[in-house]
């Protein structure tokens, strides 16, 4: 199984209890930890702030981890596409393929005590936060073994114990919520930060500016990350925003523009942002990124974009290809070894899907669970209350 293959490269000590799908950097030989300095694709652009250096420190093992993690995410999303088309996933399914560098770079710069909250394009963030692949697929298919026990669906993945607060369906709502998480972190004096992710579509939401105003007034350790994939559903950014320079939209809140397809740039920016926010309050990061799929599985994604644009980005800026080139040019691994990793990842995903498929749908009694934490023994009713009712514990 995939675990055995991974175990060969990974010393037993760093395999955690729940066998995380995203592995910590390998530590099998000192060469793996040899620092490498890489320049980001483009320099950072700052708004009312001195941007960090574009020279990023990394290691061979970190690059390999990035490659594996992003490949896993890519595979997961493509597999979800097939599952949706074969009607095993219903309703909404918003895929993240193309944007993996943001999830992976962010995770590399923080700890599980920091918090992340995002909107509905959440599968990969969930995975990055230590989410379980089987639970992800089971949730997508509405099964009992799902991370939300089948009650949430694609847009409502959570992993509170490792600082992932969802998974939200209402565009923009996650930003004030994220500022609230930061408020709590400051209140409890934890020395941690919250990253609230939103898209270029949500960037125009009023509540975002309300939350940003309060965060700036109260010096909350909140970092707002605009994952600018340039389209809010079918509306290009220039049609929705008078000023699509989202990193500047904070006005009095400084911002940084980052190449979101470059995982090292993302990591550098997020590390910088965390240090900044702990001392000074909110910061905006605009990640220039791209989604290969349409807005959701109901959107082909080609009526408002040209196929040339999509394939152009895939050729020039794909985040996984960028890391592959780095690995090859630094002689960290051979092309074959990387292909093997991709094969392993593919198998891992296939196995997870098979396992998830075996999980049954939730028990009918689950219709009435978790309405409240404390239900006071009150009755709740089904469609025909004379037929179906339950007592809420």
């Amino acid at each position: 199984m995939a675990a055995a293959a991974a175990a060969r490269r990974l010393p037993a000590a760093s395999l955690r209890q729940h066998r995380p799908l995203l592995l910590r950097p390998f530590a099998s030989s000192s060469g793996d930890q040899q620092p490498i300095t890489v320049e980001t694709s483009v320099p950072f652009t700052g708004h009312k702030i001195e941007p960090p250096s574009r020279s990023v420190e990394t290691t061979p093992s970190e690059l390999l981890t990035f490659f594996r993690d992003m490949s896993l995410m890519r595979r997961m999303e493509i597999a979800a596409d097939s599952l949706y088309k074969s009607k095993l996933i219903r309703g909404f399914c918003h895929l993240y393929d193309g944007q993996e560098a943001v999830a992976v770079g962010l995770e590399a710069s923080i700890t599980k005590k920091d918090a992340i909250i995002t909107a509905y394009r959440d599968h990969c963030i969930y995975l990055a936060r230590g989410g379980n692949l089987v639970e992800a697929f089971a949730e997508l298919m509405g099964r009992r073994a799902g991370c939300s026990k089948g009650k949430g669906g694609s847009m409502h993945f959570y992993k509170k114990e490792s600082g992932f607060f969802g998974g939200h369906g209402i565009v923009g709502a996650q930003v004030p919520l994220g500022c609230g998480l930061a408020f709590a972190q400051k209140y409890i004096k934890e020395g941690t930060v919250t990253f609230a992710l939103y898209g270029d579509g949500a960037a125009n939401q009023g509540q975002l500016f309300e939350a940003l105003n309060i965060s700036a007034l109260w010096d909350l350790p909140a970092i707002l990350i605009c994952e600018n994939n340039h389209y809010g559903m079918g509306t290009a950014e220039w049609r929705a925003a008078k000023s699509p320079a989202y990193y500047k939209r904070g006005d009095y809140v400084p911002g940084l523009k980052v190449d979101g397809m470059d995982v090292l740039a993302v990591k550098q920016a997020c590390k910088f942002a965390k240090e900044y926010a702990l001392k000074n309050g909110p910061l905006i990061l605009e990640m220039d990124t791209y989604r290969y799929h349409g807005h959701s599985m109901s959107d082909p994604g080609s009526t408002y974009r040209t196929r040339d644009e999509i394939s152009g980005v895939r050729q020039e800026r794909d985040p996984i290809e960028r890391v592959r080139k780095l690995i090859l040019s630094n002689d960290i691994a051979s092309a074959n070894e990387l292909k093997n990793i991709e094969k392993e990842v593919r198998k891992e995903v296939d196995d997870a899907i098979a396992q998830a498929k075996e999980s049954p749908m939730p028990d009918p009694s689950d219709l009435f669970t978790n309405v409240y934490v404390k239900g006071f023994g009150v009755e709740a009713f089904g469609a025909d209350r004379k037929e179906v009712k339950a007592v809420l514990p």
Partner: protein
Amino acid sequence: MLGIARRKVGLGVFSATILEQALQRALTAGSVLPKKYSTTAKEQMTVREALNTALDEEMSADPKVFLMGEEVGEYQGAYKISKGLLEKYGPDRVLDTPITEAGFAGIGVGAAYYGLRPVVEFMTFNFSMQAIDHLINSAAKSNYMSAGQISVPIVFRGPNGAAAGVGAQHSQCFAAWYAHVPGLKVLTPYSAEDARGLLKAAIRDPDPVVFLENELLYGESFPVSAEVFDSSFCLPIGKAKIEREGKHVTITAYSKMVGYALQAAEILSKEGISAEVINLRSIRPLDRDAINASVRKTNRLVTVEEGFPQHGVGAEICMSVIEESFEYLDAPVERIAGADVPMPYAANLERMAVPQVDDIVRAAKRACYRSVPMAAAA
């Protein structure tokens, strides 16, 4: 004069000052006042004091509780409910917000996700509409969608319903709106005891609670028993209170209308109709057991509410009784509610837009077949 003095303190129409004057006159008329109607401050409490002390004690007991809203801090609260709290707990726990309901309600919910226990004040619940997405989609539904991972121990509180002369945009009752949503709890205190016990319960509750106060009740004084003063005093959520026992007709009411219902019951008793007045206290969960038990006893029901009639609280109560106690009804259920119009400003129109005691009396008589029968259609 004596009749007024004997009536329970805290009825909606009489302000404390008028009652005090009445008592003064009764006293000077020559100790006709029975001893038990003492007016020593210890046994009386205004709703404002009840809310203030409840907030104070809960903040003292649990450092995770904090208060957030417009003017709650330096202004001492728009209605002085949070008086003294900023001074006592500091600006980290009593936070003045900008006028941005969507923003600060969302921040409150996010803080609750993380494990804090926010009390978010809306200056009136009319302004909660700016933030309603966070109450419903971010707060109410999270525990369910996350299968229990993300609970939201938050209280949204503030004045609800009509005040006096504040016009259409500042007078709506939101009980029916919020009580519609599974995942929320909706409480409507009437007396000082209600306010104290229910607010404490709400703050301690692990689920999102919408706590609907009433501006006109803040200054009302109520007699309270000694146990109400205890810092551990708490009322159960989801349980109604029989404010007045009766035999012939059940009158359900919440918030300010409880006072009106009690007055109506007094008037009805003089005409030989014994009305049982139920103070709902909790709109969600609704105490269907108490309501049905009462109707099974009296066989007649009048529901009273201040809010708009269509799809209101009374409609739900009526349906509950039909489902569970149909055979016990001797008359159709009567429904008294606010007029089906936006609240007008002119005093006479405003009076027509909100239930009056006469309306409740008339409806109760109808339920008892004691009113003038309607002419049959030709």
